[in-house]
């Protein structure tokens, strides 16, 4: 097996790996790099459990080949908290019970963060449709929307305070 050498950034750190041409980014993350926060729920882009960002864009990592991310920035659930300090979305998911079994949770969080990065003040409908690519079978719908709303509110008010101080 020949192997393709890939240089990428994952959660801000430079990472190099060798993979085969037929390996998905999801399998590289899980099987080669030990980053198992992204889950496989379908392998066909239907469930969103494997969500990551590629250059800030929400992506199903099961639909991208590992070899394709050479030179790109990857964001995964493992990079969302700052050390022990959880991201506001992570805190609000816990507080609002927006998770049950937890298997879809990393994907939802990555998708919610990508949504808020692009649209910091989404309407409820925008959140519902923004997260429509993620399935929760338990099912935490509604609570997930409330958690994202609460996180957006907290992040926006924190931003406003920062702006005032500046």
């Amino acid at each position, binding site marked *: 097996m020949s192997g393709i050498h890939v240089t990428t950034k994952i959660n801000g750190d430079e990472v190099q790996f060798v993979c085969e041409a037929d390996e998905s980014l999801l399998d590289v993350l899980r099987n080669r790099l030990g980053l198992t926060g992204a889950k496989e729920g379908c392998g066909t882009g239907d469930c969103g459990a494997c969500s990551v960002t590629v250059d800030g864009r929400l992506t199903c990592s099961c639909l991208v080949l590992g070899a394709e991310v050479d030179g790109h920035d990857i964001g995964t659930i493992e990079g969302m908290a700052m050390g022990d300090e959880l991201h506001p979305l992570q805190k609000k998911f816990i507080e609002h019970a927006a998770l049950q079994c937890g*298997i879809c949770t990393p994907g939802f969080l990555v998708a919610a963060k990508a949504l808020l990065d692009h649209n910091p003040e989404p309407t409820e409908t925008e959140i*519902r449709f923004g997260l429509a690519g993620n399935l929760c079978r338990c*099912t935490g719908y509604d609570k997930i929307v409330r958690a994202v709303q609460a996180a957006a509110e907290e992040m926006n008010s924190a931003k406003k305070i920062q702006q005032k101080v500046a």
Partner: protein
Amino acid sequence: MAETAEGVIGKDVARIDGARKVTGAASYGSDFALPDQTYAFLVTSTIARGRIRHIDETAARRVPGVIGIYTHRDIAGKVKAGKLMADGGYLGTSIQPLTSPDILHDGQIVAVVIGESFESAREGAYRLDVAYERQPASASFDDASVETVAASEASKTHEDPKVGDAETAFQQAALRIDVSYSTPTQHHNPIELFTTLCHWSDGKLTVWESSQNVWGYKYGLAEQLGIDPNDIRVLSPFIGGAFGSRGSLTPRTAIIAEIARQLGRPVKLVPTRDQGFTIATYRAETRHHVKLGATPDGKLVSLSHEAWEVTSRPDNYMVSGTKATTRLYQCPNIYSKVSITHADRNTPGFMRSPPELPYLFALESAMDELAVATGIDPIELRRINDTQVEPIKGLPYTSRSLMACFDAGAKAFGWHERNPKPGAMRDGDWLVGWGCASTMYPTAVAPAAAKVRLMPDGKAIVQTAAHDIGTGAYTVIGQVAAERLGLPLANIEVQIGDSDLPPAPVAGGSNTTASVCNVVAKACDRLRQQLFQQSNAASATDISGMPLDAVLNDLPKDGIEAYAENLPHGTTQEGIGKLYHGHSMLAGGSELKDRIQFAFGAEFVELRIHRLTKEIRCSRLIGAFACGRIVNPRTARSQLMGGLIWGLSSALHEETEIDQASARYYNDDLAEYLIPVNADVREVEVIFVPEEDKAINDLGIKGLGELGNVGTNAAVANAVYHATGFRIRDLPIRLEDLLAVES
């Protein structure tokens, strides 16, 4: 969040495993990795009935990285078929693939290809050439070659509840409802795939697999592999959704374990989503014939519920929901009969509220039809037929708050504003429909065991082989231990999901909270007793409120430990022996000699149906539930909300479709097997109706994990009728069913 010990049971606290789940640190079956592990990829049959004629491995073996191909030639004689749980075994099916060349259902495992990587195994599997001798296969009820038998003939223990003379009373009744309903095949589709990782070391097997029954898996695998159960450990710390699909052992696990044994290396299986439709279990399709006879003022005089369920050729799997539907309303004349139809399918299995979901759809739809026929409000009709005495044997319910649930739900919903005339409520282009239905779920409790260890630093470890399938078991167990020991919740470490721990029952029948919390409370009480007996404080007569601080210093370095077993009402000492052999002796529901144990609720649905496109949208979903003591309102609310959405999904979305000619599923992926997304679900409200049930168990807990999704499908169908005047009796209800609605 610092929690004080006092009143931790019943407190609205966040789940204690939350941080691990939001950071990706929680590890599920396939997240575990072992040095030198190999990857398995399944090859499944493309026919539903017949025989493997020939397997050509040449092309598959040429794929770089493929290191093994296992078929019936390698596995037959090494892995035994197991018995169904209902027959005293541990499995969900008696069909054990790879023990012969015979094919008994679509998607049966015919080979396992092992590779150095997932990709090489998959490539090898794609290149494996399997030739079949195909025989005609029957898909479901309407196929000529199926065999239908009465459940009472198929199973010695089956009973069809009956009282009085239902047929004569029906013929003489002033008002008669005589209707048929059906529910479709459904698949659990937990988001976590049906993965398995097996590793042998010094003759001992370790299995990482999401399981609702780790002790059952241990004993089942021992039987199938012919080894000592004490040489098997099943680990399942986090479970990515289960809904019944991981309650009984499926045939893949023993196969993967056997391959790992032959190969001498760990084997990890990650099957595909479509393979999950045929290598695990499912909810079989059902048919119902309901006859209700009533007086003009709505009093039931006759209730008859006849039902048919599909199962596999060899297994007598059945859910028999008439146990519930004959016990929902007072009625002097009741008839019921269940039959099963053997088709060329894999064996069905438990799926969230296995009996109640399909059976209450029929009864609660029929009650709505009776409400229309009598002109009585659907809630009032239920009040007229409410009872505190179970109608079949005349036994008392330990508690029953059905009408209190209807009253609380109706108030929150604004039911009094409902115009009963179909199609009378509109909102612009949308026809508005309001429907309601009762829900009920048996409270069953099983023997369980637990250990608690208190350390000198004031921290405690609780150990029991229970399972957290997303319900919040970690958290409620921690809460009970915190309160009973008198420690902050943050000081409690809960260890579950490991068959090396003291046994707990299967996480099925919504029994975990009641079964496990009661035994954990017992172990904690025992530990305190030991503690204060050892210390100088022994002279105190009441130790329940004494703080631990004074005695912690006297503890040995490794702390002290207490162990407890619990035998709930209706179980015998034999239950502990069974528990230690991987069997759960669930007692409750309608199975007790002296009383009846159920939780009840009322569900309300508001639908909007577009007058032109017939698009169906659920704008409001409210459930009011009375289920004894609520240990944690936050996780309980999540369970009930999730249940309501499951119910909505069973009414409007889910159906596994079968090609009648080939007896194969054809929408076996998450693109075409419809389940709701956030955009499909709007306002969901859960109301807890206070209910104290001191009789049911020491802590007064009823199960609620499966209560929420029962009845919702009927409430939806009843709302469809209210919006359109169309009574849809076959689920799921799709817009094509409403094309004839006049706009």
